């Protein structure tokens, strides 16, 4: 029976692939839920930070922190958040495409581009472009921590403070829902003025030690929390994208198995018919 054995081994191999993709799909689903929880947990902090910045800027209209002053854009910095691992559909490709659009847009205006890369896929991609990479961090894992990001963000904040970059952007995948992850570009620096909504509840504060010092601390933490949020959201998007990609892969494997099974059955039937014909032929000859 030529062919049937090959088909059988092929079916077995597709089946084991399907097992793997199914397992990956389930792992991604549960990880995505946890990442979504973390996204939700990060929200109150960012909101309170924004409110505090709003209070501070309204209480001190004369003082302008360097992070809030818009300068002539001669150089820009982009924090690109990507995943560490592949098999998550077009997620990274979309992030990189958006980043390149952003880069082109600014390069046309004569600005130079500096990169800060989070995630090893981004590192692998942008390293080839030969642009200056100021900082990078990889292998944050499924549960990024703020403390892992502090150093990386500080490099960019220092570059901004020293005037080596005049704008800071962050590109990451925004988690819309399980089916949709949209790459988004966000401007981190200069911080756009925050309008505080609760004007009625507004007092002038006592500052310890000084308004400038506090604003500096608050703004730095605010940017860090934004990047943290970006990283967490990216993990959620990664898991959602992987879930969808792995589901498609499992479905395709199922289809392939069905087709192969059909071919196998036909081949087997053909072999049996042939054998019967041979026996009948042989008997007739005798």
């Amino acid at each position, binding site marked *: 029976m030529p062919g049937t054995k090959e088909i059988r081994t092929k079916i077995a191999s597709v089946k084991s692939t399907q097992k793997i993709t199914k397992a990956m799909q389930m792992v991604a689903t549960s990880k995505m839920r946890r990442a979504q929880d*973390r996204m939700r*947990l*990060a929200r*109150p*902090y*960012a909101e*309170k*930070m924004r409110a*505090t910045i709003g*209070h*501070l800027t309204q209480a001190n209209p004369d003082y302008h922190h360097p992070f809030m002053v818009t300068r002539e854009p001669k150089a820009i910095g982009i924090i690109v958040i990507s995943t560490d691992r592949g098999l998550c559909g077009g997620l990274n490709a979309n992030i990189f495409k958006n980043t390149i659009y952003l880069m082109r847009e600014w390069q046309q205006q004569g600005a130079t581009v500096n990169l*800060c*890369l989070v995630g090893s896929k981004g*590192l692998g991609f942008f*390293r*080839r472009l*030969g642009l200056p*990479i*100021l*900082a*990078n*961090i*990889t292998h944050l894992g499924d549960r990024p*921590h*703020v*403390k892992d990001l*502090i*150093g*990386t963000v*500080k*490099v960019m904040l*220092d570059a901004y403070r020293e005037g080596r970059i005049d704008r800071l952007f962050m590109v990451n995948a925004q988690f819309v829902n399980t089916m949709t992850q949209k790459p988004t570009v966000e401007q981190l620096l200069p911080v756009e003025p925050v309008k505080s909504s609760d004007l009625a*509840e507004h*007092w*002038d*504060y*006592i*500052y*310890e*030690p000084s*308004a400038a*010092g*506090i604003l500096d*601390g*608050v703004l730095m*933490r605010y940017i*860090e*929390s934004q990047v*943290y*949020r970006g990283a967490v959201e990216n993990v959620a998007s990664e898991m959602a994208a992987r879930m969808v990609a792995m589901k498609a892969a499992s479905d395709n494997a199922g289809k392939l198995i069905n087709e192969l099974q059909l071919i196998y059955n036909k081949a087997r039937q053909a072999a049996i018919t042939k054998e019967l014909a041979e026996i009948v032929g042989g008997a007739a000859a005798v």
Partner: protein
Amino acid sequence: MADTINVDVVSAEGEIFSGPAKMVFVPASEGDIGIAPRHAPLLSLLKAGEVRIQTPEGTEHLIFVGGGVLEIQPKKVTVLADTALRAKDIDEAAALAAKQRAEEALKDKVDKISQAEALAELTRAAAQLKLIEKLRKLKG
């Protein structure tokens, strides 16, 4: 309600405490301060230490913070806590490490680039071969 103050302790990674308190003690950068209800509005940075919250029921919560920002309004205390221990030199070291990683990544760029280029060349060549084969078949 007059003799309690609402306390929110949040970090970037989640909410730590939220509820009313009789008295709150926090490690502000200029020295520990105790906050009673109707405290004057105040903004301060925190240093590493313990936040002590006395609830109206008489229990006490201890929360360790690595630093952060404190905002007091007469009815509300917000502690924006850092999850990590922070100090100028620690941050500086982390920044240096991030820079070094970037430099190292760029250093072994050369052979990675040539490898990528070689791969691209190979796929191009393979595609050309396929095309030639197709053309031959068409002609034949």
